[in-house]
């Protein structure tokens, strides 16, 4: 069973649909026992970091997520909340990843919206995914490059398209909306040993 964490921050249905298309049984839940007992956990999220982090804290899910031992995949804002700090609302994150979250600046369109290339994708999440594969991004804040970066992307500057620390994975892009490439990445996650 895959738990999709529902904490009132965004579109969980498309993640559910994507897993369903891959034949995986999943459950949209905010129940900490169900999350702890799941084989794998997906931590999605869109929107603003501050209210999202507050919702996690109010429900106690912040502590639950940090202590999970099974594979966990944070998507978009989910990944950003797993970082140490976000400039969006100046909030502390879960601190699973040491990298920090900053806003895009300069002569570029913001949000960074659309299909962009994965550069140097590494590790089990990206098995079978080649350099230059396009995935779908939509975000105004980004995670800096760091020691936990497992794939990067470039939008004026290089940033972390993906992060990895032990059983925790994060992707800035939306694998559930990234066509066949995204399906392959989700499928790699589903195939990991719990």
């Amino acid at each position, binding site marked *: 069973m895959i738990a999709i964490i529902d904490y009132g921050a965004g579109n969980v249905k498309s993640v559910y*649909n994507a897993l369903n298309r891959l034949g995986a049984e999943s459950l949209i839940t905010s129940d900490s026992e169900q999350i702890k007992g799941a084989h794998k956990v997906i931590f999605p999220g*869109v929107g603003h970091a501050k209210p999202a982090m507050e919702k996690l804290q109010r429900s106690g899910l912040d502590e639950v997520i940090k202590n999970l031992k099974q594979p966990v995949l944070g998507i978009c804002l989910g990944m950003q909340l797993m970082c140490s700090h976000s400039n969006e609302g100046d909030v502390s994150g879960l601190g699973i990843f040491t990298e920090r979250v900053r806003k895009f600046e300069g002569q570029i369109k913001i949000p960074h919206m*659309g*299909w*962009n*290339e994965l550069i140097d994708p590494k590790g089990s999440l990206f098995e079978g995914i080649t350099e230059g594969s396009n995935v779908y991004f939509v*975000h105004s804040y980004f995670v800096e490059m760091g020691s936990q970066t497992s794939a990067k992307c470039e939008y004026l500057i290089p940033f972390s398209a993906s992060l990895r620390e032990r059983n925790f994975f994060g992707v800035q892009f939306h694998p559930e909306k990234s066509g066949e490439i995204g399906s392959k990445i989700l499928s790699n996650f589903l195939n990991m040993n719990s």
Partner: protein
Amino acid sequence: MLKKRIIPCLDIKDGRTVKGVNFVNLRDAGDPVELAKAYSTEGADELVFLDITATVDKRKTLIELVERISEEINIPFTVGGGISELEDVGDLLKAGADKVSVNSAAVKKPELLSEIADLYGNQCLVLGLDANKVHGEWKVFTRGGRTETKLNAIEWAKEAEERGAGEILLTSMRKDGTKSGFDVELTEAITTETKIPIIASGGAGKIEDFTEIFTMADAALAASIFHFGEIPIPQLKTKLRQQNIPIR
């Protein structure tokens, strides 16, 4: 490099895909779920689903249809038409939409844009902007192009950006359905005054129209040329790639 997006638009009336010329004379163009699946498979970068009768008939958008389409496709998906309040947005996102496009309701109550952006984030908020030139000025139209407003299109685009719109779906009414090319003048006027991505819409007729508009727009939307198979998406993308336009 960020790619230019090709976006088929599914105009929906009574659960079927239709496409009008200059917003009238609707012709039947098929089952939206089948079209959505086909486009997703063919390489469309996103889909836009507009319930074009919703505002006029005061109907709520067809939530069930949105659910069916979202189950079938694995690319981003915008829904518009008939969104009049915050609750409508929540319902559509819950049904599987990634973004909502708001037009008439935002003109009536601009705070709605801020409310949506604050609650759901600007990544899911698209301003639907239908514009036409009236006595030399770009004016905003609502209710599917039926009602002229007092708003200047450029000023309205800037206000929407400030209020938190993440993107603008910019339709030129004088070009819509004519297949005579996108509205370069309108698109340039809006892109130079805003910083958010712009989807150009209205007038797509041939491959060169996309080449031209991609010098300024971030995405291009079309309906009938795709629905009736006049320009297949794979062929369009191959041609654009040959011209060194960044395409997925």
